[in-house]
């Protein structure tokens, strides 16, 4: 019964958001039913569509899994955007420095570099919180903006494609990166690449980290009750930093995959953060919240939001419906998911209240007996 409620309530939240989205579609003069059908069939109706959806879901899943770890340790990481950017920058510079290393070595190297870059950026905010008491919500946001400007600086400066300088066009992008670092395509003729496998492995790995290792136990303990953890000899500052580093590492891998799984095989900026990340750093939070902060439930959750992105593009082509609608819809889903916590607690509590009442009765009886 419990698990049914846990599953049913987020689904209701999504459905409710889609219902309001239908109203918005109507206001734009589009038929909601056929609109949603267009979206669904574009995202999940064919192998090609599903391949697109899977690719779009990769950064959402990775960031979302990272958010699960951070939120479990009671660390609010809103720095996914900046961590993705820093991961991508470090991974790109590794590929630029060692272009001749064979694929079997270079691909793990760039993914690792992505993780290190993101982890470093996350750990800064973590250390500031752990030792200087700085709210991580604020520091991660500020670090996002710093990272984006740093990316613009590098891609317009030392990392710019020499051909762009020679031509005088000066588009802020790197040269075509070493083909040895291209993520292999999984199915011939489609876009689905190795990144999908990496993301799934990371999600499973995060599950094991959180619930099957002592490291994960410490992270969750610190999130659940820092005072009790301190008494038990767990270092709260270290684990807070570690949580943000893990979270950042996953966002960093997402950034690296965005570069090496892209069709242009370059790192490009349009000056804003969303131009590179597609807002995955923020939408990953939505993915994690819908998944109830569980790494494995994040997989279907990420597929849902990835599918919405693919569907939104199709809808834009078919009915000239702006894709901004989908961003608003994402927001609505979070609003409903957050509010559904109330009903979930109510429903789950109705069972618990009985148990508590019974317990109280026995306690009183024992007292009376004594």
């Amino acid at each position, binding site marked *: 019964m419990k698990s049914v409620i846990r599953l049913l309530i987020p689904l209701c939240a999504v459905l409710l958001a889609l219902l309001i989205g239908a109203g*918005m579609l109507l206001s734009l003069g589009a038929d909601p039913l056929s609109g949603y059908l267009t979206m669904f069939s574009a995202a999940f109706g064919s192998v090609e569509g599903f391949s697109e959806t899977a690719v779009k879901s990769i950064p959402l899943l990775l960031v979302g899994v990272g958010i699960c770890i951070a939120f479990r340790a009671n660390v*609010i990481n*809103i720095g996914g955007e900046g961590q993705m950017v820093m991961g991508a920058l470090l991974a790109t510079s590794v590929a630029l420095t060692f272009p001749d290393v064979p694929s079997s070595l270079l691909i793990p190297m760039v993914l690792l570099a992505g993780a290190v870059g993101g982890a470093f950026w996350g750990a800064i905010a973590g250390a*500031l919180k752990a030792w*200087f*008491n*700085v*709210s991580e*919500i*604020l*520091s991660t*946001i*500020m*670090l*996002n*903006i*710093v990272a984006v*400007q*740093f990316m*613009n*600086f590098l891609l*317009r*400066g030392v990392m710019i494609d020499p051909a762009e300088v020679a031509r005088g066009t000066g588009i802020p992008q790197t040269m075509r990166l070493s083909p040895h670092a291209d993520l292999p395509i999984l199915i011939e003729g489609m876009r689905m690449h190795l990144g999908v496998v990496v993301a799934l492995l990371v999600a499973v790995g995060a599950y094991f980290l959180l619930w099957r290792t002592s490291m994960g136990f410490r992270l969750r303990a610190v999130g659940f009750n820092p005072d009790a953890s301190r008494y038990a000899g767990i270092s709260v500052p270290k684990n807070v930093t570690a949580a943000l580093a893990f979270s950042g590492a996953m966002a960093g891998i997402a950034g690296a995959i965005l570069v090496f799984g892209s069709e242009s095989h370059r790192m490009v900026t349009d000056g*804003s953060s*969303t131009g590179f990340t597609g807002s995955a750093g*923020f*939408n990953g*939070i*939505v993915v994690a*919240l819908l998944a109830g902060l569980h790494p494995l439930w994040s997989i279907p959750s990420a597929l849902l939001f990835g599918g919405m992105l693919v569907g939104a593009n199709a809808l834009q082509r078919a009915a000239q419906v*702006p894709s*901004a*609608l*989908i*961003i*608003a*819809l*994402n*927001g*609505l889903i*979070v*609003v409903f*998911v*957050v*509010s559904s*916590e*109330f009903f979930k607690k109510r429903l789950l509590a109705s069972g618990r209240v009985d148990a508590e009442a019974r317990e109280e009765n026995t306690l009183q009886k024992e007292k009376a007996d004594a």
Partner: protein
Amino acid sequence: MDKHLVLSILVAAIGAGTPFVFAALGELVTEKSGVLNLGVEGMMLVGAVTGFIAMTKSGSLLLAVVCGMASGVAMAAVFGLLTLTLMANQVASGLALTIFGVGLSAFLGLDYKSFSLPGVNELPLPLLSELPVVGKLFFSHDILIYASFILFAGVSWFLYRTKAGLILRGIGEAPKSAHALGYNVIKIRYMAVLFGGAMAGLGGAYLSVAYTPVWVEGMVAGRGWVSLALVVFATWRPARVMFGAYLFGAITIAQFHIQGLGIEIPSQLLSMLPYLATIIVLVVISRDAKTIRLNSPASLGITYHPEA
């Protein structure tokens, strides 16, 4: 640097700081009642777009301001419903509000992309504006900047000189005691949240109607988050919010002038400056855990259950 340059930087800093003044003073009142609303960025964006649309359609500044504030209130009402009535987590609800606001504002502003407005005329106050230095600094602005001065005076007076302000602060410190004394904690918190929303909406509208004045998607560009940081920076005091807002405005303006002086620093590194400064200031303020504990409202961010 000559005197005129310094003065013109300071005057510009007041303009650049004004969106922060509105949003941060609103958030200050919300937080003083014990509610942490992380949705400032989203509320500002929605305020910016509705204010901009109203201004384009009607040409009336008053209507633009009212629309911006009303949409901020509407967003804040959603937040209030989530956190005060449904008792949802304040951090998650605030994030949800921001993500929703980003999407909603982009959606509403589709037909107005890169439109621009003539801006708002300056309104030098007679006599006062002719005073040396002070006249230029404080009395030669547009009407919304004067409104922000009045807002500052009003908020300071309300919080520290009225009974209602005392009750509001009391609810932020000890909601249970306030409840026991017979005050309606939820109702008063609702009012504080709605006021915060109105001010965030106004800050957004100021940005799109008077300061820039164009509509670009995501134009608030982190100002809502900086406003949240300013409240911490100010250790929850209105006068320090003003100081912080203008300081931040000055750093923003200074980056343009540093280049003008011929100092060779890439513009991207300069535009990091305000945000790096924020982080450093936060480190200095927060380093001593006691400063935060003594100054922040004791029940900040904690959900209040009336029946418990």
